[in-house]
């Protein structure tokens, strides 16, 4: 089977990988992942497209170039390692994300404490290039590696009464020095509606740029929900719990007037302290318009039909 041809901008070879062999291996996996994407792409939509094609795989826009490694791994929010955006890269150096156990509990028929390896093993690892839009109005394009969250949810066998899934980050102030200051109430918590969690775009990431996740990016396991603001992408996950009621995320708890449960990227609904109409792509000088659902509206807008997105921000 042929791997779909990608515009060269999506395969930016420039210092992506340490060496060519790794790059080729990763490109193979990426290709496989992209084929999987056809599952949910609009039927009949051009998949072979070059830059001119409407809707490249994963809704990647023609002018989306992966953000350099130095920015992806050197500039992000991970308050467990400090509130400055260059703190995580500095303060997470000595963090050891092994051994790692993920607890699955709540309303499901296959709960338990799983070793990370066992938790991930049954699934095929995929590479996916996603836009990441931070609620602070900056954005990146990040080549993630991971497994569909749907896989582990299906293995947990949630009961019919389960409507939401709540995630929890590791709580360990000795290993996560940012937790010694109560910037947020620790441990960090996030949640998704079960249909959002099962959506094929939702990824449980274990790597970036074809390598294991660096500590500062949420090693060993983090959530990636590309149509939502970045803070939904909870890092260093130790627990998944199925619930009937909507979980309260750490940011909802900290500043309910500014952060809601859904946190879908929405250029029409401003943050109380700044406009969300545009964003700065890291590395670019001119601002870009922010796209509804971060450009993934074709894939996800139907999840929210009938929901007032202005009130459910």
């Amino acid at each position, binding site marked *: 089977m042929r791997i779909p041809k990608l515009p060269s901008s999506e395969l930016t070879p420039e210092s992506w990988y340490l060496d060519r062999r790794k790059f080729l291996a990763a490109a193979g996996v990426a290709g496989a992942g992209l084929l999987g994407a056809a599952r949910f792409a609009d039927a009949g939509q051009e998949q072979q497209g070059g830059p001119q094609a409407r809707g490249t795989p994963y809704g990647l826009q023609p002018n989306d170039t992966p953000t350099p490694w130095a920015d992806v791994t050197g500039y992000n929010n991970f308050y467990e390692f400090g509130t400055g955006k260059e703190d995580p890269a500095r303060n997470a150096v000595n963090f050891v994300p092994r051994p790692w156990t993920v607890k699955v509990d709540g309303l499901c028929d296959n709960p338990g404490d799983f070793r990370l390896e066992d938790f991930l093993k049954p699934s095929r690892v995929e590479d996916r290039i996603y836009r990441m839009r931070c609620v602070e109005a*900056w954005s990146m394009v990040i080549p993630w590696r991971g497994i569909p969250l749907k896989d582990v949810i299906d293995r947990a066998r949630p009961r019919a009464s389960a409507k939401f899934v709540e995630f929890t980050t590791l709580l360990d102030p000795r290993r996560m020095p940012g937790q010694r200051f109560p910037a947020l109430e620790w441990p960090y918590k996030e949640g998704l509606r079960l249909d959002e969690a099962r959506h094929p775009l939702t990824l449980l990431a274990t790597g970036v740029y074809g390598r294991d996740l660096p500590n500062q990016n949420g090693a060993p396991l983090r959530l990636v929900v590309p149509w939502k603001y970045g803070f939904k992408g909870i890092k260093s996950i130790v627990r998944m719990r199925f619930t009937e009621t909507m979980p309260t995320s750490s940011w909802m708890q900290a500043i309910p007037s500014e952060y809601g449960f859904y946190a879908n990227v929405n250029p029409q609904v401003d943050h109380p302290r*700044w406009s969300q109409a545009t964003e700065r792509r*890291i590395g670019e000088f001119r601002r870009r*318009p922010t796209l509804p659902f971060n450009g993934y509206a074709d894939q996800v807008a139907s999840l929210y039909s009938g929901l007032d997105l202005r009130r459910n921000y």
Partner: protein
Amino acid sequence: MQALGGIARQPRGFGALLVVAAAVPALWYAWAIYSDFALGSRYLGSDPIKAAEHAYGAWTLRALLATLAITPLRRLTGWNWLAKHRRTLGLYAFAYGVLHLLVWAIIDVQLVIDDLVGWDVVKTDLLKRPFITIGMLALVLMLPLAITSTKGMIRRLGKSWSKLHRLVYVVAVLGLVHFFMAVKLDWREPLVYAIVLAALLGWRVVESRRRAAADGAVA
């Protein structure tokens, strides 16, 4: 008053040195933004515009605190020659505030060069977002202080000049509130500025009480 330290007189070239030194951050960040975008350097990290914007804001507050430190420092050390540099520091505070505003308006939200954002966003920001309104108010209040900083104006305004320039206390407090509101949940950095400001303002309160008491005793 007797000088406590050894520099009762101004060291040679101090004024010129201060003028040059206070301009260094302004020039550095302007160059670094240009270099990061045009020449591919990484002086200011991944988001050079935000880095410069925040640095100019921080230097505004630092210059304001330095301005407010002159009088206590004079009283404590007897270095009265410091007095004539208060204007330099105050004008730099204003200049850094203007740079902070310009970086925000022109290259951060891109009011001027980009019709994508345009006036609407800036108007909304100014009117609907209290932390921006407060920052803007602080800067606007510095304008009359900068305008009346010349020798001629000081002479012409007489006693009302001192009254007018008490606005600097309001400016400093507003600037600090703006800083607290701009950081999300980590108030540790603005707290450092708040402690310094509280010390500088507290000294004035104590000092004026002490003087009033001394005057009372004499009378």
